[in-house]
């Protein structure tokens, strides 16, 4: 099994007619994802390499049965794209776009929670989600992930997510689902949402969690792991050497007022029984150790 997306997920791409949307939409389809539609209010009735374009997500859902959306719309249009997807009737929304204003993110996070409690948003500013062999939504290179299990991955960073998938594949270890929650201040889906889903997924035996400096999401996740998780967790937190007060690329990655340091996060995770690597490679090795110890692969 997998979490959030699988072979029954049918995806509509908002922004499929743009260059990035087209490149990754078609790439996802080549991987095996059910890419059933695209949207563009000015190009309804046209198609992108055989994929029909609709004016909005509601029309796409009606005509194709889409149950997920993937947003490749430029930042100024993301707020309305998220609402178009939620109102259109999909249950899962992946927003790849980076550079979305924090106030927009805070607004649609709370709007969805209130008016569309069954809709899950992943991102913005995330690489997407892949359940290897079943469904790949976003910009992850699918060939670097081995299908199956027993590992589930959740990460705040895109490239470090690929790194983790790759390290496991080299060791012939499969992944149930790999979720990139993104590096923005208000992610639609949190570490805890993913940990909870992995804990409930019978095929996921262990979880790899990749964090970074800034905020307190890792500390909150540590608390959850300590109290609610039976499955082993391995972790890495990027930015051990990041100086305070400097934003490290991601809008959310900043150490301010002595809070959000990698050291504090690693300490909290270790106190919760998590095995923490000091670089991505070491975390990969720790995960391999856990899997081998239990004879899961």
């Amino acid at each position: 099994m997998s979490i959030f997306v699988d072979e029954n997920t049918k995806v509509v791409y908002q922004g499929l007619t743009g260059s990035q949307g087209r490149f990754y939409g078609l790439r996802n389809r080549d991987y095996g994802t059910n890419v059933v539609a695209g949207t563009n209010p000015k190009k309804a009735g046209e198609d992108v390499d055989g994929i029909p374009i609709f004016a909005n997500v509601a029309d796409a859902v009606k005509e194709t049965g889409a149950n997920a959306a993937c947003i490749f719309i430029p930042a100024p249009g993301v707020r309305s794209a998220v609402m178009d997807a939620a109102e259109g009737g999909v249950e899962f929304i992946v927003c790849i776009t980076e550079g979305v204003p924090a106030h927009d993110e805070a607004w649609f996070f709370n709007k969805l929670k209130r008016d569309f409690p069954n809709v899950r948003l992943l991102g913005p500013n995330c690489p997407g989600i892949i359940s290897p062999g079943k469904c790949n939504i976003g910009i992850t290179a699918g060939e670097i992930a081995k299908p199956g299990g027993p590992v589930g991955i959740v990460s705040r960073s895109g490239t470090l997510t690929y790194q983790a998938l790759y390290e496991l594949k080299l060791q012939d270890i499969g992944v149930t689902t790999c979720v990139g929650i993104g590096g923005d201040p208000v992610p639609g889906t949190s570490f805890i949402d993913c940990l909870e889903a992995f804990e409930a997924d019978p095929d996921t035996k262990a979880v790899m969690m990749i964090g970074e400096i800034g905020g307190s999401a890792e500390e909150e996740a540590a608390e959850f792991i300590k109290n609610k998780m039976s499955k082993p967790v391995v972790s890495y937190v990027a930015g051990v050497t990041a100086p305070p007060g400097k934003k490290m690329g991601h809008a959310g990655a900043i150490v301010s007022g002595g809070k959000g340091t990698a050291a504090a996060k690693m300490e909290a995770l270790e106190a919760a029984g998590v095995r923490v690597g000091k670089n991505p490679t070491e975390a990969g090795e720790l995960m391999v150790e856990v899997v081998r110890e239990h004879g899961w692969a």
Partner: protein
Amino acid sequence: MDLLEYQGKQLFATFGIPVSEGRAVDSVKEALAAADQVGYPVMVKAQVHAGGRGKAGGVKFAPDAAALEEHANNILGLDIKGHITRIIWIEHASDISEEYYASFTLDRSAKKHLGMLSAQGGVEIEEVAVTDPDAIAKIWIDPVDGLSESDARAWVLAAKLNPDVTDGAVEMLLKLYTAYTDGDCDLAEINPLIVTTEGKVHALDAKVTLDNNAEFRHEWGDFELTQVRDEREQAAHAKGLQYVGLDGTVGVIANGAGLAMSTLDVVNQAGGKPANFLDIGGGANAEVMAGALQVINDDPSVKSIFINIFGGITRGEEVAKGIIGALEMVDISAPIVIRLDGTNAEEGRALLEPHLSEKLQSKPTMLEAAAAAVELAKKN
């Protein structure tokens, strides 16, 4: 983007928040002219991106022209925590009866806006938070609902401000909330928020951080002009690169903020010191890579360059083409170690193959590449 005090006040004024009349000037002569316009007594305030201006001698009271001339002379050029004062703000001095604190920011854990209000203003709010946490009244605001007048009133009562100014404080906080949301601020803070001897609520200071992601819907050009970056950051910013200057010798280029941070970590673990953080981001092409190499190459402290790319949105052959193109365009002085993996990495490595030399090495893993780059930096 952090605003200077006077810019914050200009922003606040557009939302109807009462601020003192003043002028931003960069010479003593202009300071005297400004004081004639706003009327003595005046305050002279250094405009730098640093806290603790008062303690550093950057904020002075001038009852007359002679005092103003002396203070303006002393403050212009004053070094405040490494920031040289180029601009001073001259404003009409206020008669203060009480000093409060008010701010709005985003609470990432609660995913709501957080308002903080305290009757103990004028000092560092972090100190109040430690010594007397109950003195800060907090309110969490759902961005969909916004801040209602009744909630603002209850909040003001909870902060135990002088009851005579409740109405004025409520009005001020509603305006500050609008400035914070409509202005796309990460932080909108007034410290001190004062009550004048006439009983008026007034913003005596302004600390504002704007969300750069929202620049597309604002006119922030004037604020950009006074941003102080080190030269390397300036050059990188002009090329649209995510760059943070550090003080080591290994130049770092990576794609993705997480990988770039992780690259700094492994350089440190290999015994070296990174010269910078540089994320070429998603969708980086040959031009972007060439620009990144140029920025690193112009940094005299760089002794070796570590390019760490894992291809997702950035395709391997584009990275390779970028490096090859940049090598043709600029004379890169430091040796380069590259680690390339992910989407189309094999195509990228094949393109690089004929160009490999002592000055351009390719390593299969991040740790090996870091070790090689650190060794080269030490040798040079």
